[in-house]
């Protein structure tokens, strides 16, 4: 029982990371029809930006973490907005070229991370000369039904829940949210109502960049390191979450992220034991995707581009 609880909460923690990445991807794709491969760079750069802060600032563990997270978030948002303005906007109405450009950016930015910080993982947070790097309550465990759960898992889950609630409220109650929801359905009709829908493109890229960077920072806490391949490896699972959850749907992304995180953790533990193979969790997720597509291909096809 205690193992199941541990796996469940760890799976939810992982699902929280996937959700943060997938929600931005899903909004960008839903609104603009752009599959953003550069999203992985937002994750990685966000994580490294936060790591960089922890190496350059001396403060209490809490203050440092909050500062690092805020910096990573802003860095991701700015990077997202810049990429939209400089690279995506000039190719408006050329969706294939937009995807290709994000592929080029993903390769180039990924290589840049290697070039700047090297291939080896960095300890996160990095507090030279300090005994503890994370706030001590985060390293402590809480016992639930006999399972000792590291507290940082709860932080990841809580952040994702807050983001989910915030995004949902934002989409429902603000004018930009209204435009985004309408734009996901029918972009050209939104412009035919006299609304400059392109302004929301920069906005969703900035939000997507910020959330991906947040996921990058949280992944640094989850794995205790940041590494240059982090963005790519998380991005692939986020892609799967977006396909399962449906493009443009925040709620769908949340459900799918939880499903993927849990399947991965359960399979990793139970099947890995049984098969004596550590890749079971990841491969199980691929099977989950294939299964969903076989059962409901029509429900998962992207909306018709217009």
């Amino acid at each position, binding site marked *: 029982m205690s193992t199941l609880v541990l796996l469940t909460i760890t799976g939810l923690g992982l699902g929280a990371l996937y959700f943060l990445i997938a929600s931005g991807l899903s909004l960008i*794709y839903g609104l603009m029809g752009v*599959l953003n*491969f550069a999203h992985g760079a937002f994750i990685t750069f966000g994580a490294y930006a936060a790591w960089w802060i922890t190496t350059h600032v001396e403060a209490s563990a809490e203050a440092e973490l909050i500062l690092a997270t805020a910096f990573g978030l802003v860095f991701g948002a700015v990077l997202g907005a810049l990429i939209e303005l400089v*690279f995506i906007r*000039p*190719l408006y109405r050329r969706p*294939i*070229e937009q*995807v*290709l*450009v994000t*592929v*080029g*950016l*993903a*390769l*180039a*930015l*990924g*290589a*840049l991370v*290697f*070039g*700047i910080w090297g291939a080896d993982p960095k300890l996160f947070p990095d507090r030279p000369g300090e005994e503890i790097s994370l706030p001590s309550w985060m390293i402590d465990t809480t016992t639930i039904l006999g399972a000792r759960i590291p507290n940082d898992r709860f932080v990841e889950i809580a952040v994702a829940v807050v983001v989910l609630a915030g995004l949902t409220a934002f989409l429902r109650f603000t004018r930009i949210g209204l435009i985004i929801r309408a734009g996901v359905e029918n972009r050209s009709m939104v412009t035919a109502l006299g609304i400059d829908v392109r302004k929301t493109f920069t906005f969703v890229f900035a939000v997507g960049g910020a959330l991906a960077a947040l996921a990058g920072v949280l992944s640094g806490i989850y794995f205790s390191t940041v590494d240059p391949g982090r963005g*790519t490896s998380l991005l*692939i699972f986020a*892609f*799967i979450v*977006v*396909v399962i959850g449906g*493009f443009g749907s925040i709620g769908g992304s949340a459900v799918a992220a939880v499903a993927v995180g849990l399947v991965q953790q359960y399979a990793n533990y139970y099947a890995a034991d049984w*098969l004596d*193979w*550590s*890749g079971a969790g*990841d*491969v199980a*997720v*691929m099977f989950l*995707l*294939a299964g969903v*597509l*076989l059962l409901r*291909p029509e429900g*998962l*096809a*992207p909306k018709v*581009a217009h």
Partner: protein
Amino acid sequence: MMTPRRAVVPVLLLALLIVLPFLSVDIPVLFGGPLDSPGTLNLLALCLVFAGVALSYDLLFGYTGLLSFGHALYFALGVYLPAIAVTEWEWSLPAALALLAVVAIALPLVLGAVSLRVTGIAFAMVTLAFAQAGNVIVQTNPGGLTGGDEGIILNFDPLPDFVVGIVNTKYLYWLALGYAVAVFLIARAAIGSSAGHVWRAIRDNERRVEVIGLRPYPYKLLAFVLASFLAAWGGFLWLLLIGVTPEVTTATFTLTLLVMVVLGGTGTRFGALVGGFAYTLLDNRLRNLAGEERIQDLPDVLRVPLSEPLFLLGALFVAIVFFAPGGISSFPARLRSLVYRRAAKESAS
């Protein structure tokens, strides 16, 4: 069909490529040693392999309009399966290759049948997921078969002598040339066939294909299986040239195939060949350049980007998409129209 006059250039080029291992010519900048040196021949062989693999990818992307992010899986199949068969199971080479031939049809048939149930971006993501499963399998080394990060040290005993050893690089080169030519001929025949016409119709407007009463699905599956099968043999040549390395299973590897095709020009007969060849050559030269002292002595702002070939190639790719969407193969036509326009302007003034 090619008219005799248009065939002259490709035939001459092919003749040159065939006799190339006998030419002791130094081409500075492009190659590190004379053309007949093993190092240069190995690089040229690799360029030819990727010319073929890029063309196989273009059958999917450029001709049928299928954006797959999982092509690396089938290339990796050609690397790993024969290596495991001859090394771990101690099969003979013919038996290993027969197995590869069967699996290189069966696997894309099954995975393609599933992935092609969805279209567009969802298809891209499903192929990516399957390829990623392949990557996970290779990395996690189930049953000690794949060797994880280390790869596999190939058992050379079952291999014929002429593919082993540095002095025999020219045979590998000819093998690679044969592969590129074979892929080209097969692709040309396939594109010219009735199925090839349907592929292009699907690319241009899938709905219209359905309207005239054809089911696009089997045609797309055919393209998928053919392209994967051809890529697998490119993987086998990589095995002989480079060996077993897990990097061929990564998503980044598939993305570089996409870069090659777009670099050369999609949906054109020679574009992908040129793109695959040029990309591989450029990648190699940039790697060498990165190691040079004059780069290492530069300030960080310049040194870091210049010593990452993938950064430069990614940036070049973005520039191509922005400024020359037809890729390298469109350059002659662009140049011609530029010269022509200038001539017209001069005669007008």
